[in-house]
């Protein structure tokens, strides 16, 4: 302590100002260039900094970059460093168990986690109607298991793979498109053509701008949830989500019949924090969805297709609005690209047993505890309410 006070006194006498704040000092001190500040290239060239300027408080050095100025003002002032004890959560490596880790975070995160933080949901789904259906048939039972990952790495890996494959196809398509109609070159004979390529090389400024844009994009991704990111340096938050529902009539609890639906529905994408409501995050999910759900024919109808099939390739959006930390309302819309088939084939689509609807869904999710939740859903899978177009669903699950 005595050394610190002496250091502050010396720095005040030497520089004519109080010691820098702990934050800036802490940032500046590890900088290896602090020992040779005059070598900084950002110093204004019209006023070259003399070594003596460090000992002349009347003539402070004018520089364009404030960081350089502060760096210049901290010569051998390591004793001055005053580290403010910032309350930090323990590293997972210091935790004795999963329960210790969860306990130091919060015993009830509730809907707050929508704004960030990696977690998984697993739930048992029971429901009826909304997706697969048959003309004139009773609503079909929809039972299954739903697994959700939010802000995790599996979503990132899958999306990275999809993007990589898409990029390969795009590049291939681009190459094919460019190579076919337009070829730069010249003929050297009746059957021989020399093809020439042209390249555009970035100059220094263009390269710097490109790098700056890339860095800004990276920072934007990292700052989706800065508060959450600061909460624990070990948090993982990819800003991505994946939802997989596997329908199987064998997991139906109440009405296990041969007409139960079987198939899958997988959606994935990214999320955006739009704002806050009651201090809790309002989140918009945007992504793509693929689904194929089938069911046996309804025995009560004598006509129709042997099986019913709901198929979807499309885009979806889902808005989560937290009502309290214990409840969330969400509303999602799916745009099924296959819906265009109705424009071409009309009613024949469903008479053949296929459903290519673009369902909309409203959900109310209740967090009974931080780890157990229940969700009720209403699904509208077409115009009208007949033939099981209006469906309901109920989830009971855990968060891990």
């Amino acid at each position, binding site marked *: 302590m005595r050394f610190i006070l002496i250091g502050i006194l010396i720095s005040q006498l030497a520089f004519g100002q109080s010691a820098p704040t702990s934050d800036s000092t802490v940032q500046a001190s590890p900088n290896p260039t602090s020992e040779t500040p005059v070598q900084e290239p950002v110093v204004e060239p019209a006023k070259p900094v003399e070594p003596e300027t460090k000992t002349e408080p009347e003539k402070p050095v004018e520089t364009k970059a404030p960081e350089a100025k502060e760096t210049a003002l901290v010569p051998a002032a390591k004793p001055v460093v005053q580290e403010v004890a910032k309350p930090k959560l323990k590293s997972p490596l210091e935790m004795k168990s999963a329960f210790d*880790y969860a306990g130091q975070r919060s015993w009830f995160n509730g809907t707050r986690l929508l704004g960030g933080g990696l977690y998984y949901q697993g739930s048992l789904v029971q429901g009826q109607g909304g997706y697969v259906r048959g003309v004139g048939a009773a609503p079909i039972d929809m039972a299954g298991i739903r697994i959700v990952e939010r802000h995790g790495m599996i979503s990132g890996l899958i999306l990275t793979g999809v993007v990589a494959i898409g990029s390969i196809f795009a590049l291939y398509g681009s190459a094919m498109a460019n190579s076919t109609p337009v070829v730069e070159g010249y003929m050297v004979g009746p059957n021989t053509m020399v093809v020439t390529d042209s390249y555009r090389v970035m100059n220094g400024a263009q390269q710097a701008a490109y790098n700056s844009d890339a860095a800004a994009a990276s920072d934007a991704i990292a700052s989706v949830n800065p508060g959450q990111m600061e909460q624990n340096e070990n948090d*993982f938050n990819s800003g991505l989500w994946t939802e997989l529902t596997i329908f199987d009539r064998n997991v139906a609890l109440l009405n296990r019949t041969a007409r139960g639906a079987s198939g899958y529905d997988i959606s994935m994408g990214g999320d955006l924090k739009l704002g806050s409501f009651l201090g809790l995050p309002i989140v918009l999910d945007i992504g793509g969805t693929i689904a194929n759900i089938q069911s046996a024919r309804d025995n009560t109808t004598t006509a129709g297709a042997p099986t019913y099939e709901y198929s979807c390739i499309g885009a979806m959006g889902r808005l989560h609005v937290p009502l309290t930390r214990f409840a969330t309302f969400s509303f999602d819309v799916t745009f099924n690209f296959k819906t265009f088939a109705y424009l071409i084939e009309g009613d024949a689509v469903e008479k053949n047993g296929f459903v290519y609807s673009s369902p909309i869904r409203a959900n109310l999710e209740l967090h009974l505890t931080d780890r157990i939740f229940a969700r009720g859903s209403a699904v509208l899978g077409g115009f009208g309410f007949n033939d099981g177009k209006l469906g309901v669903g109920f989830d009971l699950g855990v968060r891990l």
Partner: protein
Amino acid sequence: MKNGNQQVPFLLLALVSACATTESTSRDSLKHSYGSHPFAVYAFGDWVKASDATLLSGARPFQRYSGGLGFGAGTQFAMTSFGTLTGAEGEVELGGGTGNIHSDGKIRFNELKPDPENPATFSITFRAAARAKISPIWFRFSDEAGLRIGFMGGASFDGITSRIWNTSFVSQLGVNLVLRIGGFQLNTNVLYSPPQGEEWKLARIQANANLVFGAFVLGGRWTLENAVASTATPTYQKGLVAEQTFSATVGFAFGE
């Protein structure tokens, strides 16, 4: 000579102990699937005890032997907001072995009947599997000791040319238990594949355990598979095939 034979197990034990004690242990006792290491290469041997049953022939027992080399990987990546460890593991194996040696002495190769066109008795084995893991329960007793219990989900692909049925990727769900004490680690999986497939409905239960002593890996695996032909075809008469596979592995773990 008798005394010399009796000393062999003790020498092996001493060797394994030396491997375990000289191995530097990871700061995070629960991170990797092979002790302090995320990767392993190993040799495996399989013994298949099975029977096929057709409507015409009834149950006929047969056996198959194979072996090969494998590469395994597994680690934990991140932790959820609830303290759940998340990670992934998987393995790739390539080997070869006999065809189906029936109790009547005939080798039937990928058929329910003798194949005069293909009398080869050698089959190729290829396996690949990948699983995501989430472990909501874990305890770290010290820097070098811990316990992890979790769930797994993934898919496996089994291509065995002497098999009667053909299935593509088979989804799997299961549980995982890892116990680590210093240079010793026990890694146990139990996986279930619900009935799936088009031509053949395959259901599978698989249990495997790896013992890791430092960088030395010893493993065992038991698999029970039941495949039912959905429909009769000219090649495959409608029937049931049940196979039990007993596997042993010996390997070497590496990586940080």
